[in-house]
């Protein structure tokens, strides 16, 4: 027997899924904004500090800051592009009648492992400089 509740409840469920997908991309925007903002700021801070206190004894010189800044900005942009693709696929699949679940584990693993790697590198560099 056909379930008469599927009409309005399915439509409402689709909207909830769309809203959940939008909240997911806003979370990714916030995370990537942190990465990009840090990348933009660290380069400028290092160059300015290099000029004001150029005794050559800083941990982060302007030569070292540029690759860090570059990596952070590229990482932020890359993750944001992945998030956009994932969000677009999710929105398109909601419109279909044969909805299927898209796992997002690879992207989460990539983002988490990259940040952990950078954190460990920072600890190692700071530790070696002591």
């Amino acid at each position: 027997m056909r379930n008469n509740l599927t009409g309005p409840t399915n439509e409402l469920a689709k909207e909830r899924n769309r809203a959940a997908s939008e909240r997911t991309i806003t979370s990714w925007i916030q995370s990537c904004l942190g990465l990009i903002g840090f990348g933009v700021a660290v380069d400028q801070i290092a160059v300015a500090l290099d000029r004001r206190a150029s005794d050559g004894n800083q941990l982060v010189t302007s030569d070292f800051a540029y690759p860090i800044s570059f990596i952070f900005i590229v990482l932020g942009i890359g993750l944001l592009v992945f998030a956009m693709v994932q969000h677009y696929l999710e929105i398109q699949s909601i419109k279909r009648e044969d909805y299927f679940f898209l796992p997002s584990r690879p992207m989460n693993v990539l983002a988490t492992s990259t940040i952990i790697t950078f954190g460990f590198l920072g600890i190692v560099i700071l530790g070696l400089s002591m």
Partner: protein
Amino acid sequence: MSGSSPLSNSPNFQTELAKERNHMAANRTLLAWIRVSIALIGIGFGVNDIVLRLWSGNDENHYLMKFTRLFSLSMIALGVFSVSVSALDYRAEIKRLRQSDYAYTPRFPLGLMVAGMLVIISLGALIFIQKLNSF
């Protein structure tokens, strides 16, 4: 004897509960966009303040000041844009929920638009930083 009442099994009751869930989901989405816009506006003001304080009194960095001002203005404008559109979207969704014949409506992809604009602004920043460091 436990069990739900016939009233709670009726389609209208369950649809109303689902509508309430949708209402709360719309609230959460609006709050998420408010957080994003606060972050964008905060970054805009913060980067501008930091760079101006670091390079104040240094007339060699005219292009750096201009770039920083442009970057900050772009971030602030994007923040204001995202919260405005999300507020309008929220208002429209609440209106749709009040209707008896609710249907899912595909609409303006705010998330994709804001993310796309952020990618463009960030690529501009990356190119500028690369040129600045090559001098």
